């Protein structure tokens, strides 16, 4: 017997996460229109037109969502973005490591951040064997250095490794 109201909720689709992008779009459109409010009409026309279309579309989307909620077909849970739950922490960790990778690059330099990022993210994703955890980051770091820094002369942030190897290349 299924008397539990919570159980019934699980059969309904969680549409909370579906609202993130429309709200972002509507919010950015409002900010955009705010930034052009004192411009000549020609400079306002394009942005205002797109913004109005966005608000109309988002309005229609909100009405559709409200109707689905009223008909008990959906809930406001953000299941779409959090599932699969088992990998949620890994995903948050991976995004955080990516941000850390970019944030640390000006200090550690490109090559060292590649090695650190690869080793830490592979460990986070479940690689526990020492050989790939050491070998892949070092090979990727070396290939990245030779290809991007030496061969293509991309002006990536320099760190201890780049300064150390600069006299050689």
């Amino acid at each position: 017997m299924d008397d539990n109201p919570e159980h019934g909720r699980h059969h309904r689709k969680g549409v909370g996460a579906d609202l993130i992008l429309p709200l972002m779009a509507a919010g950015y459109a409002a900010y955009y229109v705010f930034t052009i409010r004192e411009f000549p009409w020609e400079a306002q026309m394009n942005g205002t037109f797109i913004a109005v279309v966005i608000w109309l579309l988002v309005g229609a989307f909100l009405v559709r969502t409200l109707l689905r909620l009223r008909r008990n077909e959906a809930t406001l849970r953000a299941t779409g973005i959090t599932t699969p739950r088992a990998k949620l922490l890994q995903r948050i960790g991976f995004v955080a490591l990516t941000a850390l990778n970019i944030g640390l690059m000006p200090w550690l330099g490109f090559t060292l951040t590649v090695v650190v990022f690869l080793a830490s993210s592979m460990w986070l994703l479940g690689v526990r064997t020492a050989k790939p955890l050491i070998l892949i980051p070092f090979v990727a770091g070396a290939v990245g250095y030779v290809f991007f820094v030496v061969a293509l002369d991309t002006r990536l942030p320099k760190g201890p490794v780049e300064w150390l190897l600069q006299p050689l290349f």
Partner: protein
Amino acid sequence: MEISFDSLWQLFAHSLDLWWVIIPAVVLGIVMGAIPGFAAHNTIIILLPFTLAVNVEVGLTFMIALYAASHLGGGIPAILVNIPGTGGAAATTLDGHPMAQQGRAQQALMLCFFASVFGGLITSTATLFAMPYLARVGFYMHSVEMVVVMLFGLTLIAVIAAQDTLKGLIAGFFGLILGAMGADHIYSAQRGTFGFLELYDGVPLIPALIGLFALSEAFVMIEQETILSRVGQERMQKSTWKDTIDSFFLAAKHWWEVIWTSMVGLVIGVTPGAGASIAAFVAYQQSRVFSKTPEKYGTGHPAGVIAPEAANNGVTSGTLVPLLALGIPGGSTAAVMLIVLQYHGVPLGPRLFIESPELAYGVFMSMVVAYIFMIFTILPMSRYMSRVTLVPTRFLAPLITTFVIVGAFAPREYLFDMWLALAFGLIGYIARKTGYHVAAILIGVILGPLVEQSYLRALRIGGGDPLVLFSSTIGNILWALLAISIALPYLNAWRKRRGNTRPREA
């Protein structure tokens, strides 16, 4: 120089002699094309010391072969890992990656290579003969006509949105307003930049592409052990050389699709300012409109890989037409070539055809030869390349993230662009997880500034009268074609419904 069989044969034999330049350029072009952020023009700029040092013929052949190969290379990661190497390959992800997920990566790669190589071969040969006529296309494409061409691209948003129109349109218009960020085209006033100086020139396309496709894909990818379904894994592990040959014949069956979509690419390529991304999306949309099975697009349909790939390689010869015939570069790579040609003192425009016709026509013959070399170098590789899909995501996702972040940095060399790519990565992740298509956002970002520019220019010319958009004959023909493109799917669906109900009525 008269275009005769003898003169063409001589040009062909001469281009073949340059194999030692073409082969390394093809290999380099494919590698660079496959790395997001490293476009052909960047590579040519890096290699300017070489192209300026050698004689003009060798330098030009090298640039042409590299350019053509980079357009092919962009499709490889688009199919295997859902990350387009170039903007022109973004439309390839729509059907190419679903094929890879089903364990048909080898087939998808073969379709991509076949369409790219033969599409490029057909258009470069066609350009050899039709050069004087094609050169005039650029004269007729003004701001009004450009608005309609871009609206063709925009209608793809509706195509992508077929499953949930409202979500697709929200994603597309969100992309459009993000693309309209930065300096206004007439008054240079700043709009929607959050005060970031780095956004004053608008949203840079490469970090947006990398974020929306590559980073978001890496974030989604880690939810599974591999990017293949269970059936896909089994199918992939059993793939043989016979599959390569079968895939070749499957691709050859779509010969007509290759011809007409590559011609779409050629015509769009001739128009300065339009590029491979627009050509690929327009060709995909047109292919779907005229298909008997439009419902299969987006699910791993062979024609959905062929159309954008043939078109983005058709663009390669198209962009060179205004460069050689008029001295106007049709795109960024053509602009770099212009610098090299000017350095060597080569006259451009009609004088080129009078003073150095062998160079003018030799450019396209070099392209033909480069594509012929690609048949032998790249087609057999599809079997080995497709094995990438078997690599576990715990290795693949970190490696992709590491190198695409560099790709976001490379074009402008701003650390800010890495952060921007991450921001777009998060938008792309949310979009993927909640059923909004990242391609719809990207089409908006690409077309946002272009539509605005052409639209405002047209209005200025027309003294603010919106009817100026219907003032040219070519523009009106394009409007009619656009209306047909929009109406045709509905007409087909209506005819199908009628066909289904008739037997029951009988």
